[in-house]
């Protein structure tokens, strides 16, 4: 059985917010869920960005469940890119990178960017003094 690891954005209509959706994903479909960003206000639309690890079948069944509950599912397609060639490795971007995607090597003090860890919060885009980080869709 293939294990899937994906980042997806769930958009909850206001009526669904009160339901324990994530509980069902974990309990019924064996989703290993890591919530990266969430904005849920009672009475309004909610958005949740998470990374999920699940078997292929469970993954598809889980997504079907979400859709049947009226939750909109979109894969995370936003991507942050770094212009590595022009980087001076100052480290200003690492000050705002909570996910640890941008980090300085403790020996060389060169910047490294691990795209897999990036949650596309975009804080680094403004934090880079040289404007070398940009958002791509």
């Amino acid at each position, binding site marked *: 059985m293939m294990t899937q690891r994906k980042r997806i954005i769930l958009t909850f209509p206001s009526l669904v917010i009160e339901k324990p959706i994530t509980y069902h994903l974990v309990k019924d479909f064996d989703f290993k869920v890591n919530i990266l960003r969430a904005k849920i206000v009672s009475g309004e639309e909610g958005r949740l960005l998470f990374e999920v690890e699940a078997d292929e079948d469970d993954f598809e069944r889980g997504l079907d469940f979400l859709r049947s509950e009226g939750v909109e599912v979109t894969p995370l397609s936003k991507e942050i890119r770094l212009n590595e060639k022009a980087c*001076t*490795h*100052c*480290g*200003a971007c*690492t*000050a*705002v990178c909570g996910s640890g995607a941008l980090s*300085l090597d*403790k020996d*060389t*003090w*060169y910047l490294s960017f691990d795209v897999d860890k990036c949650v596309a919060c975009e*804080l680094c885009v*403004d*934090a880079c*003094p*040289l*404007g070398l980080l940009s958002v791509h869709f």
Partner: protein
Amino acid sequence: MAKRKRTYDEINERIRKGEAVVVTADEVTAIAKESGVEQVLEKVDVVTTATFGAMCSSGAFLNFGHSEPPIKMTKVWLNDVPAYTGLAAVDAYIGATELSEREGMNYGGAHVIEDLISGKRIRLRATAYGTDCYPRREIETYIDKDSINEAFLFNPRNAYQNYAAATNSTDRILHTYMGTLLPRFGNVTYSTSGQLSPLLNDPEYLTVGIGTRIFLGGAQGYVAWNGTQHNPSRQRGPNGVPIGAAGTIAVIGDLKQMSPRYLRAARFYGYGVTLYVGIGVPIPVLDEDIARFVSVSDADITTGICDYGIPSRQRPVVATVSYAQLRSGWVEIDGKKVRTAPLSSLAMAREIAEVLKSQIETGKFLLTEPVARLPLTATVRQLAAGGEE
């Protein structure tokens, strides 16, 4: 004063012969740790120090040459960035932080300087009131570094000897010249190269003084004066190293020979434009005091962490930490672990220290004895708002 082990002349003679022992400030710290300060004094001739950080108090004097008919410029713009021209007819000073009148914070004086040394053409626009000797009232043309006369960098305050780290106690993100500060002590930023930083290796200005030849933006430049806000009176630790911002240097050098690798325009979001300046300073190991000073390590250099959430010149210090702690990736504030991040590039500073080392080793860079020392007793005055005549 400690007994002289070697003189400038002796060191320069060894440099000319290719015999000088040159190490970086990182390397000398390791040597001292392993073999002791005596061995540093015995074996090392020169230690190279360096920094590569945002230095707002930077800019360049330019002389454009005279047009036909000539103009006495009263206002001048370079790529729509105003330059100061309250000088002779075609002299101007372009300050690093001046913003473009069209593009605001996206382009400024620092970008003009970087574009100029990169060989790009710059649009020059100037106006004047016209005189009998300078009849022209306006001009619009293009210049580049080869078309103009002098272009020299003259930075009134660079290479701060230590600097406070920054954090933010408020509930909102702060956009500062110390970078993006996350709410509720979400991070700490700092901006010196620590044990590699020039004035942290010469805390009492024994060798770095007026006339000291330095690596500046990729060329050879000089220390012109003490920098503005030079504050040698800052409280010091038992090793003589100031705890927080202290001494500064004003530096000068030929812009035309500099490289955009070591002079980079930058923008701090919500704050404005600034210039990253690469500076390398050689320190001759003349005596035991100097040998001890250059052996300083990040663990022995401390600074305060200031709360930028308090909009005052007296920002409260929430913790005092060493650079070893700052470099570890986190520090403790009120018992809470807080992430740290540098703003000046240690990788670039190390590169500059290595470049300077090899220039000295190969005889391309000779040391100069300062013609005067930097002041040892100055203090910084404050500006009173609403002062009376």
